[in-house]
């Protein structure tokens, strides 16, 4: 019996458990507010959000692979397409688009026009350096690391700072092939 074909993002989104969108947005907002109160430095909060996202991404990738049935992606292009269309749809309910490929095919941008994390949010003046959605960059980085790709993820455009879309730049640093973990003499 042949393995099942990969499901589209919409199909999986319809089949997973969902929470109320406002609850999600407000809970995330509460987390960021609490981090700002605890850590006070905007840079520290950015780093902490990224670390939290990384820890989430490391686990999230297994759920994604199990529910979406995708086979191994052949190259980085296919990987980013799958993240934008299936991954984002499955977990956030919105799709992203992939643009701005560089000549070697190792850097691209994920464009999010609609982002459920930032509904109702306005950044006050004393938090202008804050990357409010930094958890997303951590998630992408963590998930890709578990499929053997070391990446650098950064925000280029941020709607909370006045730009028109969210642009997340994903740069592939290297693909780490699987190494035999045991030493030969043991």
């Amino acid at each position, binding site marked *: 019996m042949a393995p099942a074909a990969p499901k589209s993002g919409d199909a999986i989104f319809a*089949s997973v458990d969902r929470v109320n969108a406002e609850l999600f947005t407000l809970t995330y907002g509460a987390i960021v507010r609490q981090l700002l109160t605890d850590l006070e430095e905007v840079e520290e909060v950015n780093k902490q959000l990224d670390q939290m996202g990384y820890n989430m991404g490391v686990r999230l*990738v*297994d*759920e994604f692979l199990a*529910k979406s049935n*995708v*086979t191994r992606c052949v190259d980085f292009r296919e990987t980013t397409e799958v993240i934008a269309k299936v991954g984002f749809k499955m977990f956030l309910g919105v799709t992203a688009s992939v643009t701005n490929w560089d000549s070697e095919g190792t850097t691209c941008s994920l464009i999010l026009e609609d982002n459920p994390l930032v509904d109702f949010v306005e950044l006050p003046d004393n938090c202008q350096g804050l990357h409010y959605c930094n958890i997303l960059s951590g998630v992408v980085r963590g998930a890709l690391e578990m*499929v*053997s790709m070391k990446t650098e993820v950064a925000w280029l455009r941020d709607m909370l700072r006045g730009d028109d879309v969210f642009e997340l730049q994903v740069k592939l640093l290297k693909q780490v092939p*699987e190494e035999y973990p045991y030493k030969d003499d043991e």
Partner: protein
Amino acid sequence: MQFFGGTEISPSPPAPTASGNNAHMLYIFNRNGVALLYREWNRPLKTLSPQQDHKLMFGLLFSLKSLTAKMDPTSADKGNLGVPQLPGQGCSFHSFRTNTYKLSFMESPSGIKLILVTHPKTGDLRDSLKYIYNLYVEYVVKNPLYSPGTPISCELFNKTVDQYVRGLG
């Protein structure tokens, strides 16, 4: 902790056909060779200590994967045997059978390897392995008390896996 009922797991489990345990052992490894789970239901002959046994199993599959990829007649890659594979390259093997047992294997792109040893007349277990992978996601990955990369000690997961495997034809 997320509960199992109500979530649609794909594929839905095959209906239990035979009673009694058909499977001998189950191993789950992560990409670093750590044995996350080892379940044994029917194993009369034991020759090695558990650590050696796990290492042997992991090493066997690692080498088999590499070998099957290199011997692939349809691939254009001319790399040397033993060179570490990039993910995405190479074909993937899924089972081998001897006269006394059948070993079924599934590897996820994140490096989680599931190995199920059953009796030799068992059919294609790929869907069953996928279902066990889904169980792993629901009970282990989503469990906040579990740290990734350590052996699994979730009783509920063990029980569910036992129950599922018992129902495999």
